[in-house]
């Protein structure tokens, strides 16, 4: 059965036709995720109907919440051109900027998980790494004073990356040296991070007062914002896009990236080809940790300016879904992070405007993830022929791998 079943593909593999070029390939890659989102929204509509609300109204509010409303834009522009007053225009773009603010940590954290997947590692520890990144950035941000911004800000960013990197490197080293499975160890590192932060926030890092929060970071350590308050969009978003591009470049254009992809695709083949598999495990876990750490950094230095209990609110766990949704490709990850960022940010508005519980969004997100994880469902619903060629998304092996 084996060789014959494969035979037809060998002759005409769809999606590999050189004439079709990259555009066809990108379209093929986007088709299933796009349909998954659509199907998720459709089934979400049924859920909204079931709780007795109007799905059109709900999705209208969701859209308004994530993108804004056209009449506000028109009003904003009119006032701006009439009087030069930007306040109304700023109010019009507020929803979009908030969506981008919500997207930023998602990009970093999902890049972290995606990089791990590329090397065959399942980094469940992004949550803890985000927290460690936030704490380190916050510490450098508030404890050092009197530095100019061009020194203080990079220092605080690097501190966050380093904090996450250490948190990722430890399970990486344990896997490389002792064969300890990274899933178990990253989960354990999450708990250590949670409890450590609890202690730090009630002790050494606590600001004066009784609340378990850190002091505000110095203004010199803040990521500059683009607009006046209350718009919180800042350079963190740009940094996230730049880092996504950097990860792409690293993975696909450098020899080290090739090694990482080879190790992820088949550690035995990589070892046989003379690559140092264990070193790559440590390296990738450290970089992945650093990326997740930057999610915390961007949130602290760009948005909150302090760290409190319950800081991360699940970025690390959502990022696993995002990496899958983005097929572990940095650009795919950016798109999926945008999707989740806009859904999350719009959901708040949907809750207040249409009275739809915010949990509906969790249901929709869950459905999307299920459809991405089991693309056969989508192919079956929409009668799409299977593409067995560019199926590179998930390469992590199971337990004991």
């Amino acid at each position, binding site marked *: *059965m*084996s*060789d*014959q079943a*494969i*035979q*037809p*593909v*060998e*002759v*005409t*593999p769809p999606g*590999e*036709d*050189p004439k079709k070029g990259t555009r066809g390939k990108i379209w093929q890659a986007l088709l299933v995720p796009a349909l998954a989102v659509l199907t998720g929204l459709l089934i979400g509509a049924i859920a909204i109907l079931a709780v007795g609300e109007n799905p059109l109204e709900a999705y209208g509010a969701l859209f308004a919440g994530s993108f804004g409303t056209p009449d506000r834009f028109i009003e904003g522009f009119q006032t701006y051109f009439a009087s030069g007053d930007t306040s109304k225009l700023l109010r019009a773009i507020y929803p979009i900027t908030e969506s981008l603010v919500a997207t930023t940590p998602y990009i970093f954290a999902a890049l972290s998980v995606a990089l791990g997947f590329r090397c065959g590692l399942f980094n469940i520890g992004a949550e803890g790494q985000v927290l460690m990144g936030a704490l380190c950035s916050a510490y450098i941000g508030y404890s050092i004073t009197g530095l100019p911004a061009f020194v203080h800000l990079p220092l605080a960013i690097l501190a966050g990356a380093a904090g996450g990197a250490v948190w990722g490197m430890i399970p990486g080293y344990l896997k490389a040296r002792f064969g300890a499975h990274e899933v178990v160890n990253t989960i354990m590192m999450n708990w250590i991070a949670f409890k450590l932060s609890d202690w730090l926030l009630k002790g050494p890092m606590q600001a004066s007062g009784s609340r378990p929060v850190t002091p505000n970071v110095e203004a010199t350590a803040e990521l500059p914002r683009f607009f006046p308050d209350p718009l919180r969009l800042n350079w963190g978003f740009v940094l996230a896009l730049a880092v996504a591009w950097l990860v792409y470049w690293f993975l*696909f*254009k*450098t*020899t*080290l*990236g*090739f*090694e990482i*992809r*080879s190790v992820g*695709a*088949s550690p*035995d*083949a*990589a*070892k*046989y*080809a*003379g*690559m*140092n598999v264990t070193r790559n495990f440590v390296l990738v876990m450290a970089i992945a940790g650093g990326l997740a750490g930057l999610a915390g950094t961007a949130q602290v230095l760009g948005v909150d300016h302090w760290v409190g209990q319950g800081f991360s609110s699940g970025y690390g766990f959502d990022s696993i879904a995002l990496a899958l949704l983005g097929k572990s490709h940095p650009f795919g990850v950016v798109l999926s992070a945008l999707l989740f960022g806009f859904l999350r940010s719009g959901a708040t508005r949907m809750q207040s405007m249409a009275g739809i519980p915010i949990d509906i969004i969790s249901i929709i997100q869950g459905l999307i993830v299920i459809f991405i994880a089991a693309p056969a469902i989508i192919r079956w619903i929409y009668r799409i022929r299977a593409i*067995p*060629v560019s*199926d*590179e998304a998930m*390469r992590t092996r199971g337990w004991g791998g």
Partner: protein
Amino acid sequence: MCTCFLVYLATSPLEHAVTANTTTDLQQPPLAVEMRGIVKRFPGVLANDHVNFELRAGEIHALLGENGAGKSTLMNILAGLYKQDAGTIKVKGKTLEFSSPRDAIKAGIGMVHQHFMLVPSQTVTENILLGLDEPRFLMRLQEYDKKIADLGDKYGLKVDPRTKIWQLSVGEQQRVELLKMLYRGADVLVMDEPTAVLAPQEIEGLFETLHSMVAQGKSVIFISHKLNEVASIADRVSVLRRGKVTASGVPAKGVSRQELASMMVGREVALAVDKKPKTPGEIILDVKDVHAENDKGLPCLRGLSLHVRAGEIVGIAGVAGNGQVELSQVIAGLRPCKKGQALLNGKKVSNRDTRYGIEHGMSYVPEDRTHVGSSPNLSVTDNVIMKNYRKPPISKGSMLDMSAATKFAQELKEAYDIIVPTVNTPVRLLSGGNLQRVILAREISGHPNFMVAVQPTRGLDVGAIEGVHRLLLTQREADAAVLLISEELEELIALSDRIYVIYEGRMMGEIKVEGAEPDKTLMDAIGLMMTGTPLEQIHMEGAPTHG
């Protein structure tokens, strides 16, 4: 009825066989299976093009063909796994429609797949009962253990029913698969390349079993692409090429290997290799008193010493699992060497970074092509640069030049006849022969001065084997030292200048090969050494020895 026995032949030299056959047809037993005009189409491929196939009751019928010729497709249709697009299947004279493997089993057709479908953590009995409605409710397995033991005795399939599958050798697991089918009442047994996974003695055991089953009224379809097996096991042979029948029900005795080979491949195939006399040069690989442990931590190499000179092919003979693979891994730096050392050009390569050997002219064709020799999900390009991606022109500094890599892959694709739509295709979509060409292309393109090849032709078809042999000989011509580890004795004798025989990680002796024809005394001597008799204790006549 008589027309059913018509023999379809593609080549004329066989016509005498036809006439010889038709005279005896009248006394032949009835047909167990008759497939007529079977058509099966896959997207882009006509896998079976009006194929007729018939199996007589009580015969062993070999179905020959290269990989992708359509033989597995045909048998999967018979086993109810695929549905034919056109054509009829008759079993014992009755036309049947199979919509699932269950229907086929009910009709008495049982298929043993190349990859076993057994649960490793369960016992033999549990595996055999899996999927059946017995026992009902209470797991009284003792009586089933006995039933299965009796069934095994009846057909010479000795397996302890209470053993767990993971404790069994591959040959024993195959017996379990056979028992599974017999227990379900199969009369027709389809064996999909059953010898591909077996050691030589296990093959003999299997052949005995098949003969005893046939003697007791079962019929066997034996899918293979190995010509020598067909001659020794089958009563009749059918050959498929590109979905079409090129020989149907030819008596196995009346046809030569050469004729079968050309019917399979569609052209003349050089079965004998053309090895020119050559004087070996310097010692390239020197293995001195190497000791190593296997994956279970048990000693597998116990003081092995050997050497390979430039411009010679040295074979390692031995039954699978006697340390051959571990030896190659020690040389490649992939397995720790407990004592002794392996030297390449006078420099130590054992217990050293694998990369060191690669950078000093070692190339390695591993046994497991799909998971060690290549990375299945990566493209042809990614796979061919896996060993030279750190060097120009593939990379500049730490930057990868993908256009140079693609160009390199394209060149190899042309030079080594790798059949693949584009070099971006993942190698898991390649056939075994093509994949081996990708690996050999990569290994040879590094201009090695030493190559170790482990089972380089296992599972390949005749045409592909010919190509691999030619490539190994060009390495010899190019003054490289080649260490060839193989379980195919004929291949070793045909290609090697010298052969070492190892048994349980010890050297049993060294034999110099003169002339490419397998000689009986030589074969017997190697056979004895492979089962643990050192060369000094064998009294050979004729075959020159040294060492």
